[in-house]
């Protein structure tokens, strides 16, 4: 009789990486529902398209690298990247934008660096940034107008048509995002004048746009679910939202001059970024203190780029810039080990 010969520990918690990824995907569902409800079925089509592209690209590279294909696809990391990327893209971006972004995210940003766990940059954000700088027109004119502003909303067929073939009618369905509108009008108009724009359907102060509020609240709910399930710690989202909030309170308190706090928090990709993008463990800082610095850095960069940069939203660039810093932050924020008087800082000195 032969017993298993293995060193301790013997007990492990059931589950695998796929469980973690599936839970994150599950947590995006409230956000997806809100997006679909307020902006039509564009995101659903983008998610489906991006997922297919991501799986094909992942499988192809795995085959080239002689890695087990099904075993690695089952970790759901490619699917998660595709979902997060599709949620970041404008709902009616042409299909080739999605394909370029997704394939670049998977092949270059993820697999060329060595696959899951080895990529220094958030693949979804790399894909997003690539198409944002390469196809600015397609990326800024494809945001949907809120359904309630359209007579009949956007049907599934119309959405397919907008994405895959005719883009002649696109102007009828799309509109700049609230952040974009506010940012470009604030120089010439007062807050009340800007809020007269139909996109700010909720005309009561503070300035917000109903659809975006619900979308952000839905992502916040998904994020809290993940926090509760222990998929990440509070450090990054709290520090990210905290720094953004403080900056917009101290700098942007005058809504006649700057985008107000409410819009920063509840418009654009703020909650998606804070809970789903910035918390990507592979590319984030891993120490408790490091996570606070990392999240705070993203918060500051988002605010700086939104306020003084040329892009209306800034989650992708802010996250990518802090990805650069994450390994360095980790080295200098090691926790103090049990029994040690001080924490080690930095790398070991080479002899």
């Amino acid at each position, binding site marked *: 009789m032969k*017993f298993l010969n293995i*060193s301790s520990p013997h007990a492990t*918690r059931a589950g695998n990486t796929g469980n973690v990824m599936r839970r994150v995907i599950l947590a995006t569902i409230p956000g997806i529902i809100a997006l679909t409800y307020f902006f039509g079925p564009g995101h659903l089509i983008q998610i489906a398209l991006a997922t297919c592209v991501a799986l094909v690209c992942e499988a192809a590279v795995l085959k080239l690298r002689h890695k087990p294909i099904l075993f690695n696809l089952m970790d759901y990391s490619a699917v998660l990247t595709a979902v997060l990327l599709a949620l970041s893209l404008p709902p009616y971006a042409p299909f080739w934008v999605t394909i370029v972004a997704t394939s670049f995210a998977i092949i270059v940003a993820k697999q060329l660096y060595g696959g899951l766990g080895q990529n220094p940059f958030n693949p979804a954000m790399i894909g997003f940034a690539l198409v944002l700088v390469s196809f600015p027109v397609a990326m800024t004119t494809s945001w949907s107008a809120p359904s309630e502003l359209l007579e009949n909303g956007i049907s599934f067929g119309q959405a397919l048509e907008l994405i895959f073939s005719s883009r002649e009618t696109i102007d009828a369905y799309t509109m700049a995002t609230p952040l974009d509108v506010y940012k470009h009008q604030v120089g010439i108009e007062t807050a009340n004048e800007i809020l007269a724009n139909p996109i700010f359907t909720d005309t009561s102060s503070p300035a917000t746009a109903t659809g975006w509020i619900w979308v952000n609240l839905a992502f916040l709910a998904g994020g809290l679910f993940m926090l509760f399930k222990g998929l990440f710690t509070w450090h990054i989202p709290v520090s990210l939202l905290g720094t953004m909030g403080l900056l917009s309170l101290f700098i942007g308190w005058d809504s006649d001059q700057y985008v107000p706090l409410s819009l920063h928090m509840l418009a654009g990709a703020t909650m998606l970024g804070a809970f789903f993008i910035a918390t990507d*463990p592979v590319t984030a800082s*891993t*120490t408790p203190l490091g996570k606070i610095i990392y999240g705070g850095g993203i918060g500051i960069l988002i605010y700086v780029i939104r306020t003084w940069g040329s892009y209306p939203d800034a989650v992708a660039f802010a996250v990518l810039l802090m990805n650069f810093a994450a390994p360095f932050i*980790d080295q200098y924020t*090691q926790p103090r080990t049990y029994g040690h008087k001080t924490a080690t800082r930095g790398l070991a000195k080479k002899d």
Partner: protein
Amino acid sequence: MKQIQLHDFNGGIHPNENKIQSTTLEILNANIPEKLILPIAQHIGAPSNPVVKPGDTVLKGQLIAQGEDFVSCNLHAPTSGTIGEISLQPVPHQSNMTATSIEIITDGKDKWLEHSGLENYLNAEPEQLIKLIQQAGITGLGGAGFPTHVKTSIPASKIDTVIINAAECEPYITSDDMLMREHSQEVIRGIEILCHILKPKQCLIGIENNKPQAIEALQQAIDKLESNAYHIQVASIPTKYPSGGEKQLIQILTGQEVPNGGLPADIGVLLQNVGTAHAIYQAIDKGEPLISRITTVTGDACQQPRNYRVLFGTQVKDLLAQANTNLSKVSRLVMGGPMMGITLQDTNTPVVKTTNCLIAASKHELPDPAQEQACIRCGMCTQACPAQLLPQQLYWFSKSSNLEQAKAHNIGDCIECGACSYVCPSNIPLVQYYRFAKGEIRQANADKLKSDGAKKRFDTRTARLEREQAEKDAKRKARSEAAAKKQAEKKAQEAANPTPAADSNTVAEIDIAALQKKLDATKLGIEKSKTKLAEAIASDSDKVEILQGALEKAQTKMKDLALKIAQAKKASKATPEATDPASETDPLIALKEKVLAAKTRMEKAQERLNMAKEQNLDTVDALQMGVDKQKAKLDAAQKTLEEASQ
């Protein structure tokens, strides 16, 4: 009684406890098996020395192996019987190794050696009590097996707090729980003895709150005490693995951390396992040495999990059989807990002093390890680590053998509790990676120590050689200076007493110089053959000695020859303007004769060599070569002489 302020430690996990199964029945005395296998090293420190020999009869409690070093431990016969063989047997170790063990063939009588305990330990000096603990062979029963007498020998003035570890945080294990439930008074008595030795200001029994019955039993036993001089208190702590780790329990109960590289005593704490306290009670009050312990036998393959009082040396197979274990259902046999225990391969392995649990686990409860996936740096391990390390960083450094960085990230502080591996969603065997890196670091340190020693020796030697050389040089310089001075004096003298100019015969002088050179070469040849001969001697027989003698003789002759040449040279110098041909040829003829004589001797040597050849000595070849070379040299010398004489 004042409330104990509890503290939390970083991280920790809540694995399935699986403790209920083995606590439904009371502790049962395990059967006395036919034979017991007692390894002589069941503790930390030097192995004990057997004091019995095969065939001896022993009584229960009789000393069979003595711990001779201070950090070592006595071993006693767990029952009466006859000593079988003392040989290598499988022992509980991850590597499935064997070690020297004493076999006892039991006689079933279980007859005690006469023994008695102290009437009142309070009348005894701490030193006497420690001596008795040492004689009883008590080691820590929690896991590491550190000899208790060593631990209790620290000066009592250093200890403020004695902590009794009754946390029993690992899943499955219930041996301490059941011991406390059933023998709470004896446990408290043991703790009192311990306190009498160490004189602490307070004594805390740390016990996880998942053992309410044990807590209740202990509390009742404490309440019954006439005087609680050492403030023994039960501290119920939250259930969280690894709260029973020494460092973690100290942190929970005192809020202090054991300094890195230090001992609990450095912060005035001494920690003992609750089972050890019971063993101390048995040794002091009853005079019984440590010969058995309570072991939990559990697992899905075990039909009736329960706790047994097991004699040391009982083979696992006997215990499993008594517990009605379905061996075919066992996929993993674990000794210890599921977090830090070791797997056994051989059911002949005996129960030893540190065996607190046996888990006959089915494939269902402890499945085969899942395939390792990529680390996604999720940081769940960091959240679980009780040592506040960064396990995922240690993993990358260990995997890439980046030992410098692993050390900088304090891999040495890892207590291998397994919490990180437990929570890892990617099923990475993290602890195994750390064990690898720790092993590499240990090896590198050992290698460095070795090479540092070698370097030191080399440096010392070089320094010595340099010093000797310098001394030699200084001597030589002094000598040459003295010689130069003499020379100068001589010259000065010569200058003072001028002699007629000595126009030497340059042609003759050159000839003589050439001759001398040749003969020097011949001498060298002889020496060479001599070394060859020496080699031959080293390798073989005494017959060679004769040859050596002959060659040495030839060598002396050659030296004489050289001397003669030198004399001739002197003579030629002393006879300036010796244009007379006779004066030129005469020494040459003499030389020629000498060379011929040497040649004959060489021929004699050759003869001896031939004799050696006949006797078939395998060194003949070397000799032959030497002699040949010598002969050639002589021939050459002869030729030169002939040339010179023309």
